[in-house]
């Protein structure tokens, strides 16, 4: 029986290292809750986090900014909640995008994340983007 409380926080300033940290944090969570590598809830969450994290780390640090992406991962009871805050441009036109047809090479990221999470939240607060990803175990 694993723990039902977990908390991880990091500031991310690099795409490759940032993605490493996101995946490592999910691995720590997986161990903390005693789930194996094929646990579907955690696979769904990690897949969605990889999509949103990749977008945020690519577009959320505009040229000239030194502000890192702030990341937190919390488990409270049976609910995993990840938060990513970045200082990139406002995101609007892609949020409702449907899954592209089979021949398209890109444009699936947000549709994949939406499908696999219980909640995917986005809000613009001042000059920051705030993403909230929720998955129930």
């Amino acid at each position, binding site marked *: 029986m694993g723990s039902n409380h977990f908390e991880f926080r990091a500031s991310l300033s690099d795409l490759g290292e940032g*993605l490493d940290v996101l*995946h490592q944090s999910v691995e720590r969570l997986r161990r903390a809750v005693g789930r194996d590598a094929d646990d579907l809830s955690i696979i769904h969450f990690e897949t969605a986090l990889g999509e949103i994290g990749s977008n945020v780390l690519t577009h959320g640090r505009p040229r000239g900014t030194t502000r890192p992406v702030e990341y937190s991962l919390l488990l409270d009871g049976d609910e995993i909640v990840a938060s990513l805050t970045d200082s990139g441009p406002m995101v609007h036109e892609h949020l409702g995008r449907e899954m592209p047809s*089979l*021949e398209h090479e890109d444009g*699936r990221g947000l549709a994949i994340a939406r499908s696999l999470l219980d909640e995917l939240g986005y809000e613009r607060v001042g000059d920051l983007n705030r993403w909230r990803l929720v998955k129930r175990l």
Partner: protein
Amino acid sequence: MALEVETRPADNGVTVLAPTGRLDVVGVPALKEAIGEAVKNSPPKVVIDMEGVSFVDSTGLGSVIAALKQIRNSQGELRLAAPNQQVRVVLELTTLDRVFPYYATVEEALTGL
């Protein structure tokens, strides 16, 4: 974690590509480079051994779709072998498993190719 790609020749002119690591926005260039070499054979017959791929994202999927187009344009064939649970979840969610019928092992993927 950088993606590393091992290239292994197999029978009948088939090339087996065995990436290790995450096939994501950081790892895609290494796979693209290996595919670029493999399609120099005519017609290109390629098996991607996914056993060492721990995670795939939509950018990684896009690179496999691009490889499939490139190989089919040369009258070749591309097969995927041994995807883990996360890769299967993403292939099925995006319905790309209809385009990439995957095989449990490399040996099965090589059969009849």
